[in-house]
Each structure stands twice: as C-alpha cells, then as structure tokens.
C-alpha cells in the first residue's frame, strides 16, 4: 500500500483572492514580513499497488479529476503507507 500526497495550487498566472485576504489579515496582525500567500488543496490517497504504474495512475487521476489544469498546478509525493 502506498500513501500519495497530492498538493494542488492555483497557477502563477491566476489571482488568488483568498490568499490576498489572508495576507491582509496577517499584515493587520503585524506579520509584515509576509510577502505572498497562496492557498491550495492537499489530498491524501491510499493506493493499493497493482499491475499499473503508480505514477501514471496518479497523473491520470490528477488530470482527469483531481485538478483543473486550466487554473491549477499539482505535484505529488509517494510514500510507503504505514499500516495501523
């Protein structure tokens, strides 16, 4: 079993109004060293190892459903899932 962590962020060219609002709040709290905030999504998938190559399966899922590549970028990490 693998644990796949997918990080989804808005593309550089896309404005992130939520991130701007959060940065405004941080500045009002006097964290003026913050120069940019981008808000994204984090997905964690448990994937059973089968005959299909895990990288191509994850990429396919990301491009077909998990992200919208018109507005979002993604990256992912594959780890051994620790059984409980």
């Amino acid at each position, binding site marked *: 079993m693998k644990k796949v962590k997918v990080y989804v962020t808005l593309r550089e*060219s*896309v404005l992130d*109004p939520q991130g701007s*609002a959060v940065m405004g709040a941080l500045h009002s709290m006097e964290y003026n060293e913050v120069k940019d905030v981008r808000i994204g999504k984090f997905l964690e998938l448990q994937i059973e190892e089968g005959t299909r190559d895990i990288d191509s399966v994850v990429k396919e899922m990301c491009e077909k*459903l*998990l992200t*919208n590549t*018109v*507005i979002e970028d993604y990256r992912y990490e594959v780890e051994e899932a620790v059984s409980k």
Partner: protein
Amino acid sequence: MKFAVIVFPGSNCDLDMYHAIKDELGEEVEYVWHDEKDLSGFDGILLPGGFSYGDYLRCGAMAKQSNVMSEVVKAAEAGKPVLGICNGFQVLTEAGLLPGALLRNKNLKFMCRNVELKVVNNETQFTTGYEKDEVIQIPIAHGEGNYYCDDETLASLIENNQIVFKYASEGPNGSIEDIAGIINEKGNVLGMMPHPERAVHELIGGSDGLALFKSIVKQWRETHVSHA
C-alpha cells in the same frame, strides 16, 4: 421542440428552468437524471444552476464524470443547442466543452442581485432575439463566476466573436473582460453565469431572459420544421 433539463444531485435551478420552458415558452421539457445514458430523444439540452455534488473538489468537477455528461458531449458534437447556466456553465468548462474556468469571485462574496448585461454577439442561435449591444436585466447568484482563461484563449474568443454576454456596468466578480457568457467555436454550446430562466415574467421581476429561449426555438423551427 423538446428540451432536457439535466438534474445532478445538488442542482437547484432545475425547477425554474423547467417552468421557463414549459409555462413561459410553451415547449416540451423533461427532467433527466444525471445517471441517464440516452439523450437522443431531445432537441436541446439545458444544464441548470445549483451546486452539483455540493461543489466538492471544484464546481462542476464531479458532474463532468457523470453518465449523462458523455451524452451531453455527444449532443454538442451532433450540433444540438446546449445551454449551461451558472453551475451549468462551470460544468461545461470542466467538461472541456467551453474554454477557460470559473474562479472564486474577486471580492470573495456570493453575489445575488440583478445585473445589466450587454448582448455583445446577437448572431448566435441563443441571441437572435436581442439587438446588438442591447442592455438587458438578468439576475446573478454565484460565488464562483470569475471567468478566467489564458491570453491566447482570450484572443481566440475575441477573434471568433465567442464572447456573447458582458456585464454592462462594473463586473460583479472580477471576470476577464467582464465576460458573463461565452459560446463554443461551432456556435451551439453557450455558457453563462447570469440566470435568464429567472427572468421570464414581469411578475418575477423581469422578462428579459425569455428572448434567449425564444431564439433557440426559432432557430430550431427554421432548421427542422420549415421543410414541412
């Protein structure tokens, strides 16, 4: 002319759409559940507003995977008129039937009010009932109607006259070029954030939306019935 109103779990403008077609337009209409696998009996496809699948993941992301969407794609390829309003517009962009995407409104607020829309292109099968540059009153109700596309896509939208509606006064959501509605290159798939189905009778605050539905029927009659 027979319309299908596609119903996803979480659609909530389906009744308004049904009412607009049946009672105000006087055409045939049926609800079609998202699980259905056949749209061949319909002449026009309507994707209503709402929050399909709770807007989980992204607006329209899950809806595009439903059975009925592959039929909607077939209908669009066959040249049938396909109209997506609000969440329906989001579904059409997610499904790749229209370019670009709808982002969170720039001011982060859910905007619900009447807006003035300018009919930028009145030569589509959805807008022949309007004058060019006519300003109409149509309600909006959305939190994610901020239309975005890259520069290249925008240039091609402009070049092919695919921008159909723009917000006439200050845009409510931060859309590029104040875009409120676009059409595909072929001219049979229209997506728009404002709700023409909520503006079909003076009793509900205005009837400027009715001409859109009438335009669709007029075009269909001219193509399909005039041979009789």
